């Protein structure tokens, strides 16, 4: 009995840490899908791109993966701005975002994945950092640093974004776009410019999310697909664009997945997110903290 209690405690703790990481992965989708109504299903592909950037910086230059991600942030921001510009000109302005806009992002997802396969092959890649390997021990509970550090990075990122959204003029403008674009236009602000900035921010988060992903687990190009179900389940369950809701939903999914992996085997974990998503959509599409 004590044995399984230890197991339970460890599963819950690693689920909590995993949840923090899931929040980092999802926060970009909470901005693009939750606030801007842009169904960026290619988001996980950008995360994998972030992982590979961290991998290159780590193996070739010996830079810490998370430091590398911070350096790469502006590049991802510009990439996001460029993607939004294409999306706006080709789809949003013509009112064709439903069918063709979705297909566009699906194509981006696919192109990114195949390009990474062509350049790096399908082998799993991993990084080296001093916090990968050792664990903190709190009584019977282990705190692996490779989970703890990503969780802390995620919390810092969420906190910074929350401050930005609530305290700065630009952040409030983004929240305003999410509520009523027409009203913003009447106020003399340009919703397209603000949406471009917000979307670019959402892609910028994938740089960090990708780096913490490759800290947590080895990465190969197609694992991004495992995260599509997860990120959208968390985003919807968290109430579409609420940062606090995203964190709560991410931790909930992390714990349920960790328990499933511990007691039924890790090969079942991907199905948990889908179950989460379907139940959310069927029972409470507004999410736990929905408006």
């Amino acid at each position, binding site marked *: 009995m004590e044995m399984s209690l230890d197991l339970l405690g460890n599963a819950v703790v690693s689920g909590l840490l995993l949840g923090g990481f899931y929040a980092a992965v999802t926060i970009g989708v909470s901005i693009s899908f939750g606030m801007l109504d842009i169904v960026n299903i290619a988001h996980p592909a950008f995360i994998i791109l972030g992982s590979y950037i961290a991998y290159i910086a780590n193996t070739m230059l010996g830079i810490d993966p998370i430091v590398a991600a911070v350096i790469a942030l502006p590049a991802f921001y510009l990439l996001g701005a460029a993607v939004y510009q294409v999306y706006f000109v080709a789809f949003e302005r013509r009112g064709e975002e*439903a069918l063709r806009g*979705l297909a566009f992002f699906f*194509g*981006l997802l696919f192109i990114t994945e195949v390009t990474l396969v062509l350049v790096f092959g399908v082998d799993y890649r991993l990084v080296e950092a001093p916090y990968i390997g050792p664990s903190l021990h709190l009584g019977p509970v282990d705190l692996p640093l490779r989970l703890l550090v990503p969780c802390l990075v995620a919390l810092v990122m969420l906190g910074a974004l929350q401050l930005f959204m609530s305290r700065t003029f630009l952040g409030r403008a983004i929240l305003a776009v999410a509520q009523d674009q027409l009203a913003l236009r009447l106020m003399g602000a340009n919703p397209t410019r603000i949406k471009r900035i917000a979307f670019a921010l959402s892609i910028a988060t994938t740089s960090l999310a990708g780096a913490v992903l490759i800290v947590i687990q080895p990465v190969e190009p197609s694992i991004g697909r495992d995260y*599509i179900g997860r990120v959208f389940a968390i985003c919807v369950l968290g109430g579409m664009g609420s940062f606090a809701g995203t964190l709560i939903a991410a931790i909930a999914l992390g714990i349920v997945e960790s328990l499933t992996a511990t007691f039924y085997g890790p090969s*079942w974990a991907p199905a948990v997110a889908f179950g989460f998503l379907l139940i959310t*959509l069927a029972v409470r599409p507004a999410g736990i903290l929905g408006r």
Partner: protein
Amino acid sequence: MSGAKFVLALLIASAAVFGVAWWIGNAYVFFAGYVVLQYIALATAWNILGGYTGYVNFGTAAFFALGAYTTVVLHKLTSLPLPVMMPIGGIVAGIVGLGTGYLTLRLRGAFFSIATLALAVVAQTLITNWDFVGGSRGAYIVRPATAPLLGIDYVQYLFLVMQGLVVIVLATARAIERSRLGYGFATIRDDEVAAEASGVPTLRLKLLATTLSGAFMGMAGAPLPYYVTYLDPTSSFSLAYAVNGVAMPLVGGTSSWLGPVIGAVLLGTLQQVATVTISSALNLLIVGLMLVGFVIVAPNGILGLLRFRGGRVRT
């Protein structure tokens, strides 16, 4: 052209294609032709939901693989002939389509698309964990050397069966286009709220389209185990099916049954040639680039370009 005449025309065209392939006398023609036919069926099935009602299904691979794995189960338990297995695979995939649709189609379209993406991951997880159908190791199917009754080579038989399915799927798609049902689908695509307000039973129509589309995808996947003789979750749930299912109708044009056929023949043949001459990863990149290029530059696909240049194309 009436429906019966259209079916007759399709049958004559199919017989001509089979005759030409037979005359060339190379086994590879049937082998490669089967894949192109399979893509015509998949692309047309996708278009029944995507093109006619405007709901995007990213889970083509899931429905397709469900059909294939239904065949594996039936092959192990029974000795049913393939043309009987196909409708069963279709029913299984259709029921999954109905269930997914029932849970998500009452919400905004994007949720349905996301759910289908996730569906592919979960269906693959279930199959990977199901030892009876081989789990992650995959399943071997012994392909008979010759077909029952006809006595022809089994790959030629598979080609023939797939031709039959293509005729059924195309005739159905064209009949839908010209019926009240097709107009109902079109109202959903153009303005769902207005359609609902005018008394169109939108949810029922959407569920019908999802079920039909999923069922045809399942039927297209059902002969796959006999074609590949070794079926594993990674290759049967390959993202290539999903991206082709979306790319072929959009490249060809979604407004008519002819569009997916053009897209499937073009992209399907291109991939068969590129796989042999270049590499299979690179040809998938070509499909992805064509998809993105076409949705940006030619939103109505090749059909749209033809109409733009030469007036109307009669279908």
